């Protein structure tokens, strides 16, 4: 069995599962935020209104965590009321892990999952957000669900899954200096397409994984969602263990696939040959090299989101921006409060401010075109985020070029899509 099959077998109490099996799986951890949370509450309220039983308690409040990330700071009255309703609900049902805006640690759900070690290797983790796949880099089965499915797990503690086939991506060679995990995953999505892994698991292995930090690995699994994958996964190793040692004392049980596991497909990537990659409007699979796009003029750079505003993403951007001035409007939005604090202590925030960028509080706001930096019709943005479908970051005609933090920062300095090698010495 593959890593994912083994985790799902354990979760379903079976000794073995095969791809295609439809099984009910016990959930170890569940997440919802200020968009999915109110949606879940509505599912329960509608059931009660239609004569169903009142929800008296939830399956296990200690396995549930909640964050405010999409519409904080409150974009308007409706979003303020959603956040308040969610807070009342988590209090009523005894959920202690509720990360609140303006009350210490909070931030984008997928960033908190690793920053706070809320999910551990070998676990089954579901979240009310499509990018829940991110956390698979910790060696967990992590996948996104909608409101009804989350409501179901909150009542029963389990949920149905069709066991996915696994596509194995072997990443080999030595990683070039200016190539980041973002470039690797954009290249893969460009090759397989936005439904290239629909319903499937994308597993990453190979020499390159050993050269990637935990945060970089999280960028790979984060964007498996953009290929349609059910989950992305990387087997835990010394790097995973060291990362978790700094954050938790809880014991965990790493799961590894069998040597003779069956894969639906095996792809090999020679990362050594890769150059910085950019996804053009209006699809994450519409790729070109940054150099091929060097004549594309832009007027906005956004360094943010669960994909591209972790501490190392900010370090990469700062390395490019240090001592220079941006030529276009540039926004930096750390993915979580803890990362914001570390960025201040390391002097990164000062570099951004000196370069002329604006720093915003952690939020998903601009990435999903909701608030805090929405794009207008004429805007052309280079962004470290994950999607660039029409209307994703604002106006339906606004253009987003998805890129690594190095490329986004280099482009901020020139006002054109820029290969970082051209502005760094």
């Amino acid at each position, binding site marked *: 069995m593959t890593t994912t099959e083994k985790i799902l077998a354990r979760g379903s109490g079976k000794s073995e599962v095969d791809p295609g099996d439809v099984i009910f799986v016990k959930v170890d951890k569940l997440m919802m935020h200020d968009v999915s949370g109110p949606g879940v509450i509505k599912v329960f309220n509608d059931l009660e209104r239609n004569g169903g039983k009142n929800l008296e308690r939830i399956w296990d409040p200690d396995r549930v965590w909640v964050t405010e990330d999409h519409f904080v700071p409150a974009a308007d009255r409706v979003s303020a009321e959603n956040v308040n309703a969610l807070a009342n609900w988590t209090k009523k049902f005894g959920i202690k892990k509720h990360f609140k805006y303006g009350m210490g640690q909070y931030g984008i759900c997928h960033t908190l999952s690793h920053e706070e070690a809320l999910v551990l290797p070998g676990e089954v983790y579901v979240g009310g957000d499509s990018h829940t796949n991110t956390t698979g880099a910790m060696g967990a089965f992590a996948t996104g669900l909608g409101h*009804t499915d989350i409501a179901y797990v909150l009542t029963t503690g389990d949920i149905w899954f069709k066991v996915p086939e696994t596509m194995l991506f072997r990443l080999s060679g030595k990683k070039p200096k200016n190539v980041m995990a973002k470039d690797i995953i954009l290249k893969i999505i460009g090759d397989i397409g936005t439904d290239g892994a629909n319903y499937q698991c994308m597993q990453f292995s190979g020499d390159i994984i050993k050269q990637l930090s935990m945060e970089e690995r999280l960028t790979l699994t984060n964007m498996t969602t953009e290929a349609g994958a059910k989950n992305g996964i990387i087997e835990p190793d010394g790097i995973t263990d060291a990362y978790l040692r700094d954050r938790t004392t809880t014991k965990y049980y790493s799961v590894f696939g069998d040597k003779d596991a069956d894969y639906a497909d095996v792809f090999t990537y020679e990362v050594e040959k890769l150059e910085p990659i950019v996804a053009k409007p209006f699809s994450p699979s519409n790729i070109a090299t940054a150099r091929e796009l060097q004549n594309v003029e832009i007027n906005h750079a956004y360094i943010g989101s669960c994909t591209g505003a972790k501490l190392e993403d900010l370090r990469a951007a700062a390395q490019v921006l240090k001592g220079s001035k941006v030529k276009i409007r540039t926004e930096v939005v750390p993915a979580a409060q803890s990362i914001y604090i570390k960025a201040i202590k390391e002097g990164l925030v000062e570099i951004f401010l000196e370069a002329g960028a604006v720093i915003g509080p952690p939020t998903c706001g601009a990435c*999903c075109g*909701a608030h805090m930096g929405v794009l207008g019709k004429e805007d052309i943005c280079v962004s470290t985020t994950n999607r660039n479908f029409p209307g994703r970051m604002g106006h339906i005609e606004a253009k987003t070029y998805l890129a690594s933090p190095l490329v986004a920062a280099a482009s901020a300095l020139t006002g054109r899509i820029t290969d970082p090698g051209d502005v760094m010495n």
Partner: protein
Amino acid sequence: MKAIRGKAHKYARANIDTDVIIPGPYLKVHDHKELAKHAMEGIDPEFPAKVSKGDFLVCGRNFGCGSSREHAPIALSQTGIYAILAPSFARIFYRNSVDGGYLLPIEIEESVLEKILDKDELELDFYQNKIINLTRSNESYPMKPFSDLIAKIVNAGGLMNYKR
């Protein structure tokens, strides 16, 4: 399930994503009727006015890719859409449609997508798993039957009502 008749609303392009079906600014909205007013806003702002209760959406492959927002099947079903016919669906959209009991995601062959035209009157026959095109001399096309569990959840009216 008895046979269902309705009009086809066709948007043939592949990868119609959730940002197109219901854009990000409406994620804060949880009133189902309000969401319906903005269904498919990113592709056809007139869409809600065109749909009558029981109609079908006919679309290209990988329909509903992108975010996990349940707002997407909710908004479409609230306009009156009963089923979506497409060569394939993004996984979260598929489960949200079925588990929420909002509408039926029905898989068709890529070649069938070309045969059904906008405004065609269709009948879905769930006994024979056939689509009958009433506008085109009752031509019929196969539709992929639901798997066991999906059929049970559909018949229960959604996952919350499904008894194991």
